[in-house]
């Protein structure tokens, strides 16, 4: 798939999503679900970028999200930074942490990288709850309950009025997606692929492994942290309970459904997963069971996710097709 086609698909997807409030605008719940779909689509896309394209098993995505959320909340609560600015600062904080995490990961391989990044996830909750955390204003175990909403040009985006907020999220998601597409299509994307395929040769051809690995960590954690901050201002509350296993698994399922390294897949995966999760709500305690079974079946039946399936049905070639795909 070339860049133009990818952008076209994204335009169609987001264009359709933009029309949804016409049908569902009356329901806060559905609007909320749509907003969360958009937010998770950004997180899942970032994860796909680092894991699917750059081939780095980063398991710290939820952690960066939460770091961003807390950072933005703390900036706006403690220092009075306007939320619209603090989300960017939050992105920067998450990016800084991302780079710090990336440094030890540069020398590590596969499952080790997964562990080190997951360690950030594991340690984050105890840290936020600890006295150190309280000292920087995380609210300890209780969390933060009074995060101010985002204001832009004198308009305040309240979560009680989801439609304006929905469009704000849509704009953010579109910008993030464009950045991700551009990265994938640009020489960055090529660099990730070459480093994944053969690091030695890539370096010998002048690709700086250090630079691109750090950049991908920085970029994905920046976007994730920023959208995390955005989330905090949307919901207005934060607690460490997002660091449970549930959210992590749900994000993973988004990637499975969309297909690893099948870029717009992650976005579709986010929409599918959130929708399925909500549709399964009536079955209560059977929901995770069914989700688990679905992951099993999907991985076995469609190892390249929905997008992989679409590709092989329509026989589309392109870079993504070969980033995943059947081995020789």
């Amino acid at each position: 798939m070339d860049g133009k086609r990818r952008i076209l698909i994204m335009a169609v997807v987001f264009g359709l999503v933009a029309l949804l409030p016409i049908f569902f605008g009356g329901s806060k719940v559905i609007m909320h679900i749509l907003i969360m779909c958009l937010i998770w689509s950004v997180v899942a896309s970032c994860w796909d970028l680092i894991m699917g394209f750059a081939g780095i098993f980063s398991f710290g995505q939820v952690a960066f999200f939460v770091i961003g959320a807390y950072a933005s909340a703390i900036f706006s609560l403690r220092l009075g930074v306007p939320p619209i600015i603090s989300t960017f600062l939050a992105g920067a904080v998450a990016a800084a942490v991302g780079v710090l995490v990336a440094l030890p990961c540069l020398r590590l391989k596969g499952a080790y990288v997964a562990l080190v990044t997951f360690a950030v996830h594991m340690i984050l909750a105890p840290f936020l709850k600890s006295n150190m955390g309280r000292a920087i204003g995380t609210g300890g175990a209780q969390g933060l309950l009074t995060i101010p909403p985002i204001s832009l040009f004198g308009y305040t985006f309240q979560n009680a009025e989801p439609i304006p907020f929905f469009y704000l999220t849509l704009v953010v998601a579109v910008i993030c997606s464009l950045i991700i597409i551009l990265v994938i299509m640009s020489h960055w994307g090529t660099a990730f692929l070459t480093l994944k395929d053969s690091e030695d040769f890539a370096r010998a051809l002048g690709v700086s492994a250090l630079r691109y690995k750090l950049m991908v960590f920085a970029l994905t954690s920046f976007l994730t942290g920023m959208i995390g901050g955005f989330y905090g201002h949307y919901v207005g509350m934060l607690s460490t309970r997002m660091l449970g296993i549930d959210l992590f698994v749900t994000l993973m399922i988004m990637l499975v459904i969309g297909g690893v390294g099948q870029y717009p897949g992650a976005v579709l995966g986010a929409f599918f997963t959130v929708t399925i999760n909500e549709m399964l709500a009536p079955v209560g305690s059977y929901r995770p069971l069914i989700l688990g079974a679905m992951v099993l079946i999907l991985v076995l039946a469609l190892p390249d996710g929905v997008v992989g399936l679409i590709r092989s049905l329509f026989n589309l070639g392109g870079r993504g097709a070969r980033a995943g795909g059947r081995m020789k």
Partner: protein
Amino acid sequence: MEVIDVIISGMINGSVYALMAVGLTLVYGVSKVFNFAYGSFYSLGGYLAFSILSFKIFGGYVTVLVLAVPALLLFGYVVERAIVAPLRRWSSWEVKVMMLTLGLALLMDNLFQITYGARVKSLPVIVEGSLTVGPVIVSWQDIAIFVLSVSGMFAFRWVLNNTWVGLAVQAVAQNPNGAQIVGIPRDKIFAATFAISTVMVGLGGILLSQKYFVSPNQGWDILVKAWVITAFGGMGSIRGSLYAAFIMGMLEAFVGWMFGLTWVQFALFGVLLATLAIRPQGLMGKWG
């Protein structure tokens, strides 16, 4: 003597961690499969024991072992053949296996929850009472756990180092294609190691359930601990995992004693990171 208490606590934990970590490292070392459902296999062991014991049949834990070991073996074997092995044909199958086993974990944990309820289940003790030597008191249960896991470990190492099967397992770990060429049934070894690791962690679940109970979501803790220890010792190095398990057990006991339990997790990850910064392949790991 407080220090002795702490050391004993560290030793017993270490022995259990060793059992947990060795299974994980074995599978990773031999087939590069990272099993996210490892913790759920631990719970499976506990629930198996619970179910068998709840029939109040004679023999108690002996019957549990007689029935659970083959059951776990079969379960592990079937899981490998039916859902892990088919993925090997795909590119970046390692990620796919991770995702698959994550799904399996979700499925199993919630199956447990639905079948057995969310509440913890308790099992009878293996041996009653405790041993008192001067000021030091150790329960026989702990001693039994220690003896069983350490002797299990040594038996396992002996098999690995002294039998044809053990040699074959090592061969597959080092070079699956090479192993195939000399006539080792590679795919069977993949499945067999997966099954053996299931038995190990399942046995861990049986041994520890009395002490720590059985509950549907407990496995994650075990997975993370086993993972940390495996990486610390070097993925794929059995000896490394053994050392790492005891070091981590001790570290946990001492940090908990001296600084408080909230610091244990920071300390574990801190030591892990420091080790990996100096030796990216872990204590005894070999690349590849």
